[in-house]
C-alpha cells in the first residue's frame, strides 16, 4: 500500500508543482504590470507639473478620469502613435530579475516534472529487467527464482510467467522420459533381434558343412545385411534419443583420418584403392574421437564405393579461428544431381548406389557430426569427383 501511495505521489507531485508555478508566475506578472503602470504614470505627472505648476488642477482631474477607466477600455489605445511613438520604445533598461524570476520558476517546474517521470520509468524498467533476467536464466537452464517483496502492476504477469515456465519444465521432462523409454524399447528390440541372427548364422555354417548348397551363400549375404541393419538401428535409436554419451575431449584430425583409413585398410586393399592423407600438422577440436571416426569411415567408404579400382580417395584438413574443416573427395563420376538434395536422408538409395548398402551411412555421419556442433555438405568437384566438406565449429 505504501508503495502504491508513493507511486501516486510521484505522479501527482510534479503536477502540483507545475500548477503552483503557473499560478505564481501569473500573480507575479500582474503585480509587476501594476507596479510599472503606476511608476510610469507617476513619473509622467511629475514631469508635467514641474514644467507647468499652474495646470495642477487640470492634471489631477485628468488623472482621476484615467484612474476610473477599466483595463478593457484602455486596451488597444495607441493614441501616441500619432506623434511617432511606438510601444517597444517604452520601458528601456528593465531590471533583469523581472524576466529571470519567471524563467527560473518555469525551469524548476520542468526539472521537477522530468525527474518525476524518470524516477517512475526507472522503477518500471527495473521490474522489466528483473523479469527478463529471470527468463534468460530459465533459458540457459540454471532456473533462477524471483523473490517479490511487494505487489505491483507486474505481479500478475510474473505469476503467469512462473506458471508457464513450470509447466514447460514438466512438459520437457515428460518428453525426455518418453524419448528415453522409446529409445530403450528400440534398443531392446534390436538386441533381441541379434540372438536369432547369431543362431541362424551358426546353423547356416553347420548346414554348409553338411550339405554344401549354392543358396546358403545367398542366405549368408542377407543375414549379414540384416546384422548391419540391426546395428545401425541400435546406433540411430541412441542418437535420436540423445542418449548417446559423447565425450568432449581434444581430438586430432590427422589421427582421426588415419585411424579411419587404417580401419578400412582391408576394404581399401581389396578394391585396390589408395587413400591420401596429407600431414598438415596437429589440428585439434573438441569432440568424441570414436564417433567422429565412425562418421569419417562412412564418408571414406562412400567415396571408396564410387571409385574405380586403382582410384584415389583424398583428404584434406585445415582450421581457422571459427571452425576446423575436413574435406574428403574421390576421383569418380560424382553425385547424380538428382541425388544431391537427398544424400543425407535415411534409407535413401541413390541412383548410382552400389553394393548392398542400406542407405544409412551418410545419414549416420550427418547425425554424428551435427551432434558435435558441426555441419556437412556434399558437392561435385569441377574435375568430376564427389566431395564431402565437414566443418566442426569451435564454439
Amino acid at each position, binding site marked *: 500500500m505504501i508503495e502504491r501511495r508513493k507511486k501516486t505521489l510521484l505522479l501527482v507531485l510534479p503536477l502540483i508543482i507545475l500548477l503552483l508555478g503557473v499560478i505564481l508566475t501569473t500573480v507575479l506578472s500582474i503585480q509587476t504590470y501594476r507596479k510599472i503602470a503606476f511608476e510610469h504614470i507617476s513619473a509622467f505627472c511629475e514631469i508635467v507639473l514641474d514644467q507647468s505648476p499652474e495646470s495642477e488642477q487640470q492634471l489631477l482631474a485628468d488623472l482621476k478620469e484615467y484612474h476610473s477607466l477599466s483595463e478593457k477600455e484602455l486596451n488597444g489605445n495607441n493614441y501616441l502613435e500619432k506623434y511617432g511613438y511606438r510601444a517597444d520604445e517604452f520601458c528601456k533598461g528593465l531590471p533583469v530579475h523581472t524576466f529571470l524570476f519567471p524563467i527560473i520558476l518555469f525551469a524548476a517546474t520542468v526539472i521537477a516534472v522530468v525527474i518525476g517521470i524518470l524516477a517512475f520509468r526507472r522503477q518500471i524498467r527495473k521490474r522489466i529487467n528483473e523479469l527478463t533476467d529471470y527468463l534468460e536464466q530459465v533459458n540457459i537452464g540454471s532456473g533462477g527464482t524471483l523473490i517479490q517483496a511487494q505487489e505491483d502492476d507486474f505481479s500478475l504477469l510474473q505469476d503467469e510467467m512462473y506458471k508457464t515456465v513450470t509447466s514447460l519444465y514438466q512438459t520437457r521432462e515428460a518428453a525426455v522420459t518418453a524419448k528415453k523409454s522409446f529409445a530403450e524399447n528400440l534398443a531392446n528390440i534390436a538386441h533381441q533381434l541379434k540372438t536369432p541372427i547369431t543362431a541362424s548364422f551358426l546353423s547356416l555354417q553347420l548346414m554348409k558343412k553338411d550339405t554344401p548348397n549354392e543358396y546358403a551363400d545367398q542366405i549368408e549375404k542377407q543375414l549379414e545385411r540384416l546384422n548391419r541393419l540391426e546395428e545401425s538401428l541400435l546406433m540411430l535409436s541412441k542418437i535420436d534419443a540423445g542418449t548417446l554419451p559423447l565425450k568432449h575431449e*581434444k581430438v*586430432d584430425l590427422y589421427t582421426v583420418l588415419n*585411424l579411419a583409413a*587404417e*580401419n578400412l585398410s582391408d576394404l581399401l586393399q581389396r578394391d585396390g584403392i589408395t587413400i591420401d592423407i596429407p600431414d598438415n600438422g*596437429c589440428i*585439434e577440436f573438441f569432440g568424441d574421437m570414436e564417433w567422429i571416426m565412425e562418421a569419417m569411415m562412412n564418408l571414406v567408404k562412400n567415396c571408396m564405393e564410387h571409385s574405380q579400382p586403382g582410384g584415389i580417395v583424398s583428404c584434406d584438413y585445415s582450421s581457422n579461428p571459427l571452425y576446423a574443416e575436413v574435406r574428403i573427395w574421390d576421383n569418380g563420376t560424382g553425385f547424380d544431381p538428382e541425388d544431391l538434395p537427398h544424400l543425407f536422408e535415411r534409407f535413401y538409395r541413390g541412383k548410382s548406389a552400389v553394393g548392398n548398402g542400406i542407405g544409412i551411412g551418410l545419414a549416420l555421419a550427418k547425425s554424428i557430426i551435427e551432434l558435435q556442433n558441426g555441419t556437412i555438405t556434399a558437392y561435385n568437384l569441377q574435375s568430376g569427383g564427389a566431395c564431402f566438406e565437414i566443418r566442426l565449429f569451435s564454439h
Partner: protein
Amino acid sequence: MAQQSCDDALLRKSKSAKDTKLFCDDLMIDKEKTAVFCGQQEIIVSQPEYQILLILMENKGKTVTRRQLLEQVWDSTGNYVNDNTLTVTMKRLREKLGGPTCLKTVRSFGYRMGDTK
C-alpha cells in the same frame, strides 16, 4: 651335478639369446643391437619408432592401447606429446616396414601384432 649346472647354463644362454630377438612374420627385432630387420635387410628406425615396435613385439598377440604407447614411449622420458605425434610416428614406422599385415589397427583400442603366416 657338474653336468646339470652346465646344462642349466646352456639352457639359460639359449633362452636369453632367444629373448633378445623377437620375431613376427618377416620382422625381427634385436634388443642387444637395438636393430630392426625385415627379412635380411636392416631397417633404420628412429628412437620412438623402435620403442613402439618393441612394445608391440613384446606384447605379440595382445592389443596395446594408444594411451599405453603414449605413456611408455614418451611420458617416461618426461616429454608430453599428443595424439598427433603418435599417429605420425606410427605412420612412418608402417611406411618403413612396408605396410606389414601383421601390424593391425584394433578399432576403438589401439594396435596389435600377430603372426599372419
